């Protein structure tokens, strides 16, 4: 690392533990209307996200549709220019990078998309699809490149003979493998998996999940795993962050988040998932949230969850809860009245607001 870069990282308070960090990241999409296309409002898709992604971990990112998960993923990769905030990759703010330096960073950050049908160009052969990142970054050439692509195909469980075939000849699960091969082609450090198994049949999901886990071990990858299926996220993640209306409402170690959720939203999400265990299902007490997710164009005042929260007080309507540590530094939740151990979510909170005098 050059001296200038070292000074730069120091300035950002970079500890070396986090591969990627976002600070107060915001993405407000303008809503345009009328003949003059004037901006009449903003969709606050991502609204102030502070997130740390540690080296070698899998960070799960969950939330309902429209909560900003995918937008956050695109901001991290700088596929979208954020309205405000910083994205630090190894301590350096990549939002200040020019095109050329950005290209260098992109080598280390890749993405796997949700829809294996839409994310592969139907006119390109599988070989060309997987070779494209190598071509963009001028890695290897000719026969050597072809050999590398065939290697990659083997790594993800396809056959090297598939090189000259086209995407339509493959099933959904196989296509997702092609997407994975493309993502790992440049030996990246970070892969963002944006709902990689949601479009797949249940029997195929496990194949892709196991493949991702094997690759992580083999190539020392860091994953951000976005999904709305909380069981899959629990299976693959080390830490999990829960998003609601463009904000992180809770982030914790996997065991803590699933075992001792503090935020009422996390707790009710967990109670809403049906488990494939009929006896447990019969005994379960479910907290059914009322209403829908509010529109991010017109989010509620105060805590974004107060409109659906069974514990909400007047205080929550007026004040925005910060994402604060709970029992441990690693378990953070943005709630004034967090759910305590053994407490039912519907029990109205009687205590004074958390950490507020």
């Amino acid at each position, binding site marked *: 690392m050059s001296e200038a870069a070292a000074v730069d990282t120091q300035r950002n308070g970079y500890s070396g533990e986090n591969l990627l960090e976002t600070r107060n990241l915001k993405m407000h999409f303008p809503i345009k209307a009328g003949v003059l296309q004037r901006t009449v409002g903003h969709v606050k898709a991502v609204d102030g996200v502070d997130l740390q992604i540690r080296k070698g971990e899998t960070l799960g990112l969950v939330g309902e549709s429209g909560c900003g998960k995918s937008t956050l993923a695109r901001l991290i990769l700088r596929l979208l220019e954020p309205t405000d905030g910083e994205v630090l990759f190894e301590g350096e703010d990549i939002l200040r990078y020019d095109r050329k330096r950005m290209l260098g960073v992109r080598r280390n950050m890749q993405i796997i998309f949700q829809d294996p049908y839409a994310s592969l160009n139907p006119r390109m052969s599988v070989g060309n699809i997987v070779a494209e990142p190598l071509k963009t970054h001028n890695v290897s050439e000719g026969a050597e490149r072809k050999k590398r692509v065939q290697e990659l195909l083997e790594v993800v469980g396809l056959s090297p003979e598939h090189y000259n075939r086209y995407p339509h000849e493959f099933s959904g699960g196989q296509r997702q493998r092609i997407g994975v091969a493309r993502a790992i082609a440049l030996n990246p450090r970070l892969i963002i998996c944006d709902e990689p198994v949601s479009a797949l*049949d249940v029997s195929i999901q496990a194949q892709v999940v196991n493949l991702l886990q094997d690759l992580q071990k083999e190539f020392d990858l860091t994953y951000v795993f976005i999904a709305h299926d909380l*069981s899959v996220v*629990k299976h693959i993640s080390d830490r999990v962050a829960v998003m609601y209306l463009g904000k992180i409402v809770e982030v914790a170690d996997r065991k803590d988040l699933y075992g001792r959720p503090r935020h009422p939203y996390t707790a009710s999400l967990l109670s809403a998932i*049906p488990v494939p265990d009929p*006896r*447990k299902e019969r005994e379960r007490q479910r907290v059914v949230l*009322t209403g*829908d997710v509010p529109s991010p164009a017109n989010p509620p005042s105060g805590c974004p969850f107060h409109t659906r929260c069974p514990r909400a007080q007047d205080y929550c309507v007026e004040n925005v809860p910060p994402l604060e540590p709970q029992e441990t530094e690693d378990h953070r939740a943005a709630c004034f009245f967090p759910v305590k151990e053994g407490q039912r979510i519907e029990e109205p909170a009687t205590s004074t607001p958390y950490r507020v005098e």
Partner: protein
Amino acid sequence: MAMLEVNNLKTHFKTQDGVVKAVDGVSYSLEPGETLGIVGESGSGKSVTALSVMQLNPKPPASYPEGEILFGGQNLLEVPEKRMQQIRGNDIAMIFQDPMTSLNPVFTVGNQIREAIRIHQDLSKTEANEKTVQVLTDVGIANPEQRAKEYPHQFSGGMRQRAMIAMALSCNPKVLIADEPTTALDVTIQAQILELMVDLQEKYGTAIVMITHDLGVVSQLADKVMVMYAGRAVEHATTDDVFYDPLMPYSWSLLRSLPRLDTAGEVRLLPIRGTPPSLIFLPEGCNFNPRCPFVKDECLRIDPALEEKKPGHEAACILSVEEIEQNKSRVDQELGVGT
């Protein structure tokens, strides 16, 4: 007497490449107030089974070479279309997966529900209006008078599905077929819809056929489960039997391939190898043999029929119960699954 009885139903589609046996000999019966879960991957014939009961498969290409669907003493495969129109929506109603495409965007929601009511019941316009508002209230839509005048695009996904349920239940059907009713919805909304369906079932005693690929939803709602693979029922038993003691390797593999909230992260998933077979070129012998973890030589030759392996527990596998149990515990030990 069973409310709905399907016997050896076969639904075949003629295509340029050959005959697709989308449903190939499926039987089940449904009692009043009971819920049957039909589970399977896409292309396993779940939806075609449902559409056959509703007689909604276009003929041609669909044909029903064999079987019968008995409802109220009549075989629905033989009743004239006029009579079928009286049954459809009135006695047997259906909820589809995607509420956006199953509602007409150019009519108000109230208008569409009223249409269903007026076709089947002899009510005046004002009476039908009142009934519309009442069913919308039943499914928990706030401000129903106003909402009835709105168009589907003004409804959120969960509310559209509520409106679909309101429409389906407006004529108090005896049988409700729900084809992946919550697949397009978020979990918190899914929980709302499933709770609503259970409440309405208790209130009206409706029999429900719940089609889904989500084993969690099935274990929450179903009394009995039928697992389908490549157009056939491969296991059919009570929900507890299928989940705790599956006797068909496919059902068992499905359960082992799913991450579960209680064991997730500690147990490695057991994927099912390969992909579902093409319905035109089915494998020799058992349909599942190329993907089966317990496959034997005989499986490549013998095509097993659905037979009773334990009392009330049917499965289609040539392996004996003991062989299946041994195989299951062997693989479970390798995976580290505690029983």
